[in-house]
């Protein structure tokens, strides 16, 4: 059952990302990406990571993409008209480079010996476990991320101010 779900959700993810890249209307791209984030969250749930799945929807689909949609609406971007983005020569070259990169990754990933996933314990991926790790082993990184977020907030407010 979980296998079927993996194939369904991975198909939805790849399809939405592919469609998103080739849309003319940026709002349609944003909405397709939100759908892709949803199916990615479903994949996280299949991987026994419910906390990360909920955060994916909260942060990515619920905050970052809202920012994107806000900016698209504020800038009043409609469908892009011609000229097209890139010529066909460049597109085929990029496609070749992309597939070479993909084959390189696939080759690198097959270093892991092929075994199935081990059985998972009861509280794997639960907020308690993540909290324990976050506040003991990764506390310094946590505090640094705090400072980074503060810098980001100040920077974003500054960039958004109108010049008077």
């Amino acid at each position, binding site marked *: 059952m979980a296998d079927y779900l993996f194939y369904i959700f991975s198909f939805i993810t790849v399809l939405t990302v592919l469609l998103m890249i080739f849309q003319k209307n940026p709002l349609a791209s944003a*909405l397709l990406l939100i759908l892709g984030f949803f199916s990615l969250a479903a994949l996280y749930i299949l991987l026994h990571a*419910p906390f990360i799945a909920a955060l994916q*929807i909260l942060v990515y*689909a*619920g905050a970052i993409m*809202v920012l994107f*949609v*806000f900016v698209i609406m504020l800038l009043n971007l409609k469908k892009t008209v011609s000229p097209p983005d890139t010529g066909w020569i460049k597109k085929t070259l990029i496609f070749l480079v992309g597939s070479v990169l993909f084959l390189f990754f696939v080759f690198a990933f097959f270093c892991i010996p092929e075994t199935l996933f081990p059985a998972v314990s009861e509280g794997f991926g*639960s*907020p308690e476990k993540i909290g324990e790790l976050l506040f003991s082993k990764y506390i310094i990184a946590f505090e640094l991320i705090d400072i980074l977020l503060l810098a980001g907030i100040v920077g974003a407010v500054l960039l958004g101010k109108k010049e008077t």
Partner: protein
Amino acid sequence: MSYWVTLILKISIPFVLIFSLVPFLVWLERKGSAYIQDRPGPNRAAILGLRLGGLLHPLADVIKLIFKENIMPARAHRFFYILAPGLALFVASITYLVIPFAEPTLINNELFYFQGAHLNIGILYILALSSLGVYALLLAGWSSNNKFALLGGLRSASQMISYELSLGLALISLIMWTGSLAINDIIVSQTHLPWHWNFIFDPIAFLVFFIAVFAETNRTPFDLPEGESELVAGYHVEYSSLKFAMFFMAEYVHIIIASALMAALFFGGWQIPFVSSSFLREHCSSFVFFGLIFTACFLLLLGIILITNNKKIHYKDLRDFESVIMGVFLLLLGLSCLVYVLLFGKAPLSDNAVIWITAFLQGCVFLFKILVFCWIFIWVRWTLPRMRYDQLMKLGWKILLPLSMANIIVTAIRMIITNG
């Protein structure tokens, strides 16, 4: 019963309950606002002459909305225009799955949860879904191809995301104390004694949550985006018949869910005050006995009052005998309760019946608390004036956000002092 049957029942029974509370809430709003404004309220819609105090008005509303003309603005973006109300209703209608209606009990040696989905990340699921509700407003405002709608949609969306932050932070102090994200654990940790409930334990979190949830559901005093006199109904100005009904329903479902959250997180949820679950289970048959006697007396009294209410024959049709009909109905209900009590008395009930009756009583108490909070929503709407947009933003960012952050620090210090 098999797994799938119980799952379908667990999902559909609260769904039907919530969606049948929506027309009741519409009626409550119109009648309640009428009595606050010292007027009788809607009392005309009738079936076969029975007016039922205006309870048929929501049905009349739905029928009217279905038969209105379905407008599609000329240069609106078709797909987003149709998607927006559907998204709003979808997000509103899957939030109830993590709210428990009764205590989890052992049935056939297996813990049976009275909620649609037993997730260990309950509150996070609700917060994630309220972040998604913003998209419905944005898309509705943008796709209507109307400057007022766009402004209303952007304002409403920015208001919602500002107050989402304070909402989440207010809940963090609660989660810190309870140690779990599941709503059931929070309800269990507030015991049955009302002075252990979270609104006394953490009043600042309750206050911040209360104010933030008004802004999240776009209710007065924060309904500037949909204010009729300010922005011509904001983001749903171009929506006509069924699509407008979907926005309307979504708003009321949001109100019900927000009241359910307040009742669950701060007022003990399904806990009956002063009656713990074990006490209820031991003395179940006497609870049923006295409860039925009380209900029977109440219904009989009400029925007799309604029947003997002497009205002049004014309309010369069925409307004159309305109170008699309702009185007879209530009298019959009361008599059936009395018959049950006389037949069975205080007979001991089987274990299965005890479990289900306990769950039913706890569910009824939860429903009562939800209705009290819905009434508070309606009461506040017709009492307080609307806040201006900059005052709203100032409240959200400059007052509520630092308050909730300070509350987290204070709760952390309290935890250290009391737990050691």
